[in-house]
């Protein structure tokens, strides 16, 4: 079982990296881009857990370590390879 965890900055939190990438896309002619927000994507391999329990464990991992909930939101998806 695998999980993909996405950690992104909360709305309203300044993302200077995203702003810089947005400006760069504009320079390359992609004028339709109105905003870029950069986050993290983590691929986690899990062993021997029922799906429900895996969801609870992942939530706990995100709250405890993977995301700083002062500044970041998280979401995850569980999938089989």
């Amino acid at each position, binding site marked *: 079982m695998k999980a993909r965890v996405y950690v992104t900055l909360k709305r309203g939190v300044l993302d*200077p*990296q995203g702003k810089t990438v947005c400006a760069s896309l504009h320079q390359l002619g992609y004028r339709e881009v109105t905003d870029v927000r950069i986050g993290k994507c983590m691929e986690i391999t899990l062993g021997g857990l029922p799906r429900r329990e895996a969801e609870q464990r992942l939530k706990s991992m995100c709250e405890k*370590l*993977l995301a*700083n909930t*002062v*500044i970041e939101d998280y979401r995850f998806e569980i999938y089989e390879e």
Partner: protein
Amino acid sequence: MKFGIVVFPGSNCDHDVYHVAKHVLGHEAAFLWHKDTSFAGIDCVVLPGGFAHGDYLRAGAIARFSPIMKAVEAFAARGGLVFGICNGFQVLSEAGLLPGALMCNAGLKYVCRDVFLRVERQDTPFTARIKQGTVLKLPVGHGEGCYYAPEEILKELEEKRQVVFRYCDAGGQVTADSNPNGSLRGIAGVCNARGNVLGLMPHPDRCAEEVLGNAQGRRLFDSIVYAWELARRQRI
């Protein structure tokens, strides 16, 4: 007085703090390994600058789970003095011992230079010998020093006077130009509500003696010693 300096894998200012405590101030100092689960006889715990656990994931995110942190939390809960400098501030905020978070600098670059700081209050153990409004010059060296907290927390910090230092210009004015990293409200250092835990991005440990061309950082360490002696006399 005895300073305890936490050493994480990746700490790199631990010896700077040790030197200031032991050789500049003439007090006792001991290193506390991050895997230790307890310590005794320490009057002030310092979390030094560096890149604890490589700053992986987020600065301080992994260090906050080092075994010593439980003892640091208990020490702080008993009213013990805890001082996080730079990476130490990041660890304390990740641990929830201080409010807010330290994010990537607004200019995206690592900033390494002298900055001016305005001391916002004298009634903390860390500023006991520095008048409110004093402007200090200290060096910064960080890539993730942009202080962020949600609006309601910022409001609470101001109400409870937990902002102890702000970036300012040489005249003490808090301006956008004098802010090296985009920190909200120019915040460079905050304390907890009780005032016994302080986090500060600039480095007083790097400018605590004249031979380094600047001894202004010593004023924070002198304050800590002064406040500790005052508290000790009150206990006797």
